[in-house]
């Protein structure tokens, strides 16, 4: 089971190969890629120059392993691989990859979407965005709208 935070380029094929067993006929993969345009806090699109990802590495990998355990409990007979890149990323670079293998594809779609949704809410990773709107430019920590709230 590949679960990793890495400063190296992501290889989605490696994740897919990790979950495509003789029993798992359906593999669903998600790849999150750095977009050129992202909405600012006022909802207006800003052009992105680069992103810098920072992780609480050991804790992030632990939370990712938790997600894999949750997926196995909820759907059974699935396998999950997940990798997130940290450091400096340019437009078009893959930032996160998730692959789920399952005997049937419906389960694989559900489990993969659950895994990336839960990653975006709970895995301790942060993203600094260098942006400009034409009138303004800056660097900001960008928070996921899905991020977990303190109890």
């Amino acid at each position, binding site marked *: 089971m590949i679960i990793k935070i890495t400063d190296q380029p992501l290889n989605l094929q490696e994740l897919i190969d990790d979950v495509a067993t003789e029993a798992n006929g359906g593999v669903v993969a998600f790849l*999150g890629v750095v977009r050129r345009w992202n909405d600012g806090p006022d909802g207006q699109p800003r052009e992105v120059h680069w992103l810098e*990802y*920072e*992780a*609480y590495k*050991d*804790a*992030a990998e*632990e*939370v990712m392993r938790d997600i894999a355990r949750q997926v196995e409990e909820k759907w059974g007979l699935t396998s999950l691989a997940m990798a*997130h890149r940290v450091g400096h990323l340019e437009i078009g670079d893959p*930032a*996160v990859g998730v692959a789920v293998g399952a005997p049937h594809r419906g389960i694989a779609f559900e489990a993969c979407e659950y895994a*990336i949704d839960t*990653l*975006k*809410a*709970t*895995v*301790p*990773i*942060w*993203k*600094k965005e260098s942006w400009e709107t034409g009138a303004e430019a800056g660097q900001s*920590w*960008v*928070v*996921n709208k899905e*991020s*977990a*709230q*303190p*109890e």
Partner: protein
Amino acid sequence: MDKVKVKLFAAFRETVGQGELDWPLGPAQTAGELLDSLVGEYPGLAGGAKSALVMVNRRYATRQTALQPGDEVAFLPPVGGG
């Protein structure tokens, strides 16, 4: 005196100027109380403290979690991975 290791990331790390602090631990102190003492020392944290997530020894915890000497306590801004 008993201590814990405090880990800070992203905006919190930038506010404090470092990602790791050794911090004194009072008797029967909770994570929430420790966060209050950090904000006292670094007022720049006040704005983000309310929405901070807490981890103790790399597991999610709450402000009510009681700390032990040697614990690794992390205060996390809302996350942005993916």
